[in-house]
């Protein structure tokens, strides 16, 4: 039997001599720093969720009906009459939310350890493009069940393009293919959700990894292992503090996969709606353009950006400032390699100012999420009876908008004009476990 396999291997090698070297380059001879910690699980987990979304998505399309008349019914058909349909659908809907959980943590890791800094700017930019496409993908997927929140969410988000001067109105109609989100909108969103955007996403993921493997992974110390001493027990020319990705990080990532799947299974089997956060109550009612849900809000992963949109007031007779703010919030993240000019990568050796600023960024991002989800509007009257909810919510929300954008302004000033007092960076990585 082994003989058969080796003969097949030889046969392939003869015809594709570069295949095995490519595998080695990216797996067994891709040397990664040996000091990765908990934060380094989320990249491989994002890949796992992507695969889950594609596989469960394929099975969902087998029974989903792309039509404003049938979409909602077909989702219930999947939930009730298709064998294991409920499981596939919950895996897909939970996967969508968990995708954003792991991607947010993955991005935070990059900011915290300075993984976006030279020479990894291209890796970061490609990652931000993935994030942007992922948001479009999630938004369009959310429309497909054609529940009432699908409908109104689509209406509100597409209307954002209406704030663009001159062309806004026609642009909105062009996107929807109708005067309201309707059958035409649903069909084109289906096409984009199941084939166009996933193809772009896969391509970007390949480029993201290829770009990473060109420059090598960063690590929690932000130390360049490539510039350190050479020669480890696997290869005399490779950095002493690096280990082959396969098998060491593949087995380590598998432990992360096990943990992650256990948590995911808990949600899928015991709390698939996650208290209305992953699947909203209002989306169990079919789309109806005559009945507006009491609180229109996007899925939780969009709420920080949605809050920025809502908190920035309109002036000069246009509401476009909020839209600019919302997209600007993402653009600034993408530009971080040129905003943060600090030489030291990892938060472990950076100045106190950066640590505090990073805390402010995380706090305001989470707080904006609560504002966008309408939690503050519910909590304010409970905690401060008699307070004017709108005034208080705006005051808090705008402070958090300042916190979010303040991070970028502060970090630029802090690093551009040499205010940062960094700690000495060690010569070699430190292992903490």
């Amino acid at each position, binding site marked *: 039997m082994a003989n058969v396999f080796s003969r097949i291997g030889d046969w392939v090698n003869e015809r594709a001599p570069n295949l095995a070297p490519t595998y080695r380059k990216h797996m067994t001879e891709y040397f990664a720093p040996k000091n990765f910690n*908990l934060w380094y699980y989320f990249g491989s987990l994002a890949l796992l969720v992507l695969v889950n979304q594609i596989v469960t998505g394929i099975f969902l399309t087998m029974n989903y009906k792309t039509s404003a008349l049938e979409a909602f019914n077909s989702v219930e058909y999947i939930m009730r009459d298709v064998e294991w349909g409920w499981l596939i659908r919950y895996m897909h809907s939970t996967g969508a939310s968990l995708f954003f959980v792991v991607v947010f943590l993955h991005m935070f890791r990059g900011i915290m350890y300075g993984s976006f800094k030279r020479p990894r700017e291209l890796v970061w930019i490609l990652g931000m493009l993935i994030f942007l496409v992922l948001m479009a993908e999630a938004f369009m997927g959310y429309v497909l069940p054609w529940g009432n929140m699908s409908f109104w969410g689509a209406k509100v988000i597409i209307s954002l393009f209406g704030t663009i001067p001159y062309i806004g109105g026609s642009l909105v109609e062009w996107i929807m293919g109708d005067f309201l989100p309707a059958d035409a909108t649903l069909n084109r969103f289906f096409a984009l959700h199941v084939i166009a955007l996933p193809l772009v996403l896969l391509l970007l993921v390949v480029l993201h990894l290829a770009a990473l493997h060109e420059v090598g992974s960063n690590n929690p110390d932000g130390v360049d292992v490539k510039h350190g001493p050479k020669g480890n027990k696997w290869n005399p020319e490779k950095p002493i503090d690096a*280990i082959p990705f396969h098998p*060491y990080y593949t087995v380590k990532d598998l*432990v992360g996969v096990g943990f992650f799947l256990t948590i995911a299974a808990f949600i899928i089997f*015991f709390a698939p709606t996650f*208290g209305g956060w992953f699947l909203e109550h209002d989306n169990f009612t079919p789309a109806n353009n005559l009945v507006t849900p009491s609180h229109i809000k996007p899925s939780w992963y969009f709420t920080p950006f949605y809050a920025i949109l809502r908190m920035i007031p309109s002036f000069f007779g246009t509401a476009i400032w909020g839209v600019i703010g919302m997209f600007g919030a993402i653009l600034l993240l993408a530009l971080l390699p040129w905003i943060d000019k600090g030489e030291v990568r990892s938060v472990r050796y950076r100045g106190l100012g950066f640590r505090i600023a990073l805390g402010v960024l995380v706090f305001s991002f989470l707080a904006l999420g609560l504002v966008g989800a309408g939690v503050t509007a519910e909590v304010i009257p409970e905690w401060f009876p008699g307070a004017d909810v709108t005034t208080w919510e705006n005051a808090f929300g705008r402070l958090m908008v300042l916190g979010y954008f303040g991070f970028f302004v502060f970090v630029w000033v802090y690093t551009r004009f040499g205010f940062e007092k960094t700690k000495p960076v060690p010569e070699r990585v430190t292992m903490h476990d």
Partner: protein
Amino acid sequence: MIKRTISSIALALGLAVATIPALASEGEGLAPAGTNIRDQASLQRGAKLFFNYCVGCHSLKYVRYSRLASDLGLSEEEVMTNLNFTGAKFGEPVISHMPADDAKTWFGKDPPDLSLEARAKGVDFIFNYLNSFYLDPTRPVGWNNTVFPNASMPNPLWELQGLQTAVHGEAAPGQEAVVEKLQISTPGRMSPEEFRGATRDLTAFLEYAAEPAALERQSIGVWVILFLAGLTFLLYLLKHEYWKDVHESH
């Protein structure tokens, strides 16, 4: 560092979990329904109430009679004689025979399908709604509801609950008096305690109807999680074994 990382993740998770009830408690001030869909007898009693008092107006268009039989532990004959009063076939969904046009004339609107009501409004809402009807001669059908004011629906369970009337508080000048509480003015066939039990069964039935998969979801989930926990442990041992190389190379 690891400890700090874990505690910061725990904090983030804690923040996320702490906000769950904020959205989950859609209806405030509602008494908990206290339903248990794993209690098959409760589901059967709820089904009986639904098919005696509700299906005249409301459909469950996503629920098939055959599915009811298998999920509620009933035979085809029991379902067809005791629950199916519309002449539908065993494999067909539960569709009310009320003509939509007549419904609009009688109630002002078409009675909604109740297949997903428990997921859209929540079980607490349904339970409280069913207990909060009162006589109100100012309304077209003579009934009102404190949980859903000015509902177009009369109380279908009045002969069980009896007739409830509202006790109004002092009216503020220029405003209508608020309903302070409801009291039974004419007793029905059930005591208040029995009626709460009956409406709890009915609510449980609607909760089941909104997500039949919920019956098997949790019992499968226990095994899946046990399997994954075991797998994770084995993977950890595998990692530990491999990483001995790395730790030796220090």
